[in-house]
């Protein structure tokens, strides 16, 4: 289990991580979500003892990473698959890491096979594709057969087959009762991968919720086309719905389902040309949670979304 308490990281006036508190439980895949610059990687670096927190604590299985007697056999991590010596072979890159953990050479070949790089051990890393480097990084994380897996954006650079493979791997890990924390800046990547999501925005936690719950909480909306949009809008507003005009002249209605919109229109003799229920995607929930969807770089610790799903 990973436990983060009141974690803060400041760089001068910039607050990268602003009082994060969360726990990552074993037995499920936890997605660590947020726009680029939300503080995800900084948080993971602090969990791994690479960066020192300004305040607060991060522990794995009850102890700071630096104090774990055999850290890479408890925690497997991949932060940046590009942070390798391109002149080294895939095998050589894993071998020195194995040596540091007191792991035998046989395990190196084993993990190369696990990630689908068998036969490529002798290749220089510079000759590996982006996807293969991602796999090599994951192989490094698996070396110590760890109970905790921390992967920063593991789906980056992978082809569809690779994405399916990583998902299977993570879900398999979680099923075995291990702890899996996977960051991503794309909600839809996590929809099919994570059981639980932590959403951060500007260094703050804005959601700590099950994926199913998040989906249930996402509001549905109805798109309506009518020759009399103004009249229809007034009618819907009187009935308690919240219509708004879309760019194409249609109305987007929230707070009322499609059946009720149709009934209202029929009862008042308003002609409808289209009536389309639109199921809200998690992506929408994510963008609403993180405010502007991450287009503005993190500058301060100001507003951090509505926080309606924060427990």
């Amino acid at each position, binding site marked *: 289990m990973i436990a983060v308490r009141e974690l803060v990281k400041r760089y001068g006036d910039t607050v990268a991580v602003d009082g994060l508190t969360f726990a990552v439980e074993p037995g499920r895949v936890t997605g660590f979500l947020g726009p680029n610059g939300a503080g995800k990687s900084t948080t993971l670096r602090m969990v*791994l003892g*690479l960066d020192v927190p300004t305040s607060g604590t991060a522990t794995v299985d009850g102890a700071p990473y630096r104090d774990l007697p055999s850290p890479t056999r408890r925690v497997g991590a991949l932060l940046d698959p590009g942070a*390798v*010596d391109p002149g*080294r072979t895939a095998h050589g890159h894993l071998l020195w890491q194995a040596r*540091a*953990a007191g792991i035998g050479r046989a395990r190196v070949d084993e993990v190369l096979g696990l990630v689908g790089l068998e036969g490529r051990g002798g290749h220089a890393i510079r000759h590996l594709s982006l996807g293969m480097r991602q796999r090599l990084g994951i192989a*490094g994380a698996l070396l110590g*057969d760890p109970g905790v897996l921390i992967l920063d954006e593991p789906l980056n650079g992978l082809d569809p087959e690779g994405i399916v493979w990583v998902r299977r791997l993570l879900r398999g890990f979680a099923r075995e009762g291990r702890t899996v924390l996977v960051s991503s800046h794309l909600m839809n990547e996590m929809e099919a991968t994570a059981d639980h999501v932590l959403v951060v925005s500007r260094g703050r936690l804005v959601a700590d919720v099950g994926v199913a719950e998040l989906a249930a909480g996402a509001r549905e909306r109805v798109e309506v086309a009518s020759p009399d949009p103004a009249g229809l809008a007034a009618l819907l507003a009187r009935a308690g719905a919240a219509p708004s005009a879309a760019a194409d002249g249609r109305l987007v209605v929230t707070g009322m389902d499609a059946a009720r919109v149709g009934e209202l229109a029929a009862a008042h003799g308003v002609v409808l040309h289209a009536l389309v229920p639109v199921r809200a995607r998690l992506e929408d929930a994510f963008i609403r949670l993180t405010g502007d969807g991450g287009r503005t770089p993190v500058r301060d610790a100001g507003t951090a979304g509505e926080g309606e799903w924060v427990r």
Partner: protein
Amino acid sequence: MTASTRDLSGAGAGAAVAAEWTKLTGTGRARRAAAGAVVLALAVAAVFCLTIGPTTGVALADQPAFDVLTASLLGADAAALVLTVLAAAAVGGEYTTGMVRTTFTATPRRGRVVLARAVTVVAAAGAVSLVAAVGAALVSLVVLAGAGLPLWDAADPAVWRAVAGAALMAPFHALVATAGALWSRSTAGGVVAALALLVAPTLAGWVPGGAAVLPLLPGEALHSLAGIAGPEGPHPAAAVLVLAAWSALALAAADRAVRGRDV
């Protein structure tokens, strides 16, 4: 969960040394560089032996055999320069690529990494430069034999002291370069640190009263251990202390810098 029932006792400092050794020497690039340093030593030794007449004003035939030997050992100095730059680049390269984060994730006790790197760089540079120095000495033997001149006496301890002393330059400066590169997070910082110590005796010679600090500098200490420092040079025991002190100082600075900061 299988992971919690396994033996998770610490991997220890020996594992860190094994990892650093694999990292430093386990590439084709490193092995080619080591071979290149030895070849350079032989070539430089040959050049200095063959040009000893014009460069010293005393013809080869009139040189004592021991002086031809010490001229050839400049080849080991050339190898030392190469090994010093390689040692700095090994650390600087990790910071450039970001691999250092993998290093400190694999071994989060950073002092252990610094020490392991020091041990491996001294061992690797020492081994290569010993080969280079012996090879350079053999070059002087070939040159003397080729000219039909009397050879130096292989049973003379002074010969092997000179060879071993010449071989010490590389591990010491590679260690300083490693520490400097760790401290500065760059190859350049490591090279500058080693070069600074290398030219310090020359600089001291220019400053009034600078001669007084000469015995405290590593250059004189290395000459003393090689038995070529002259009568006013430091005692070998003092020389060992001087080299140990500089090594400890460099490592302590690197250790302190590496522990305290984010990577």
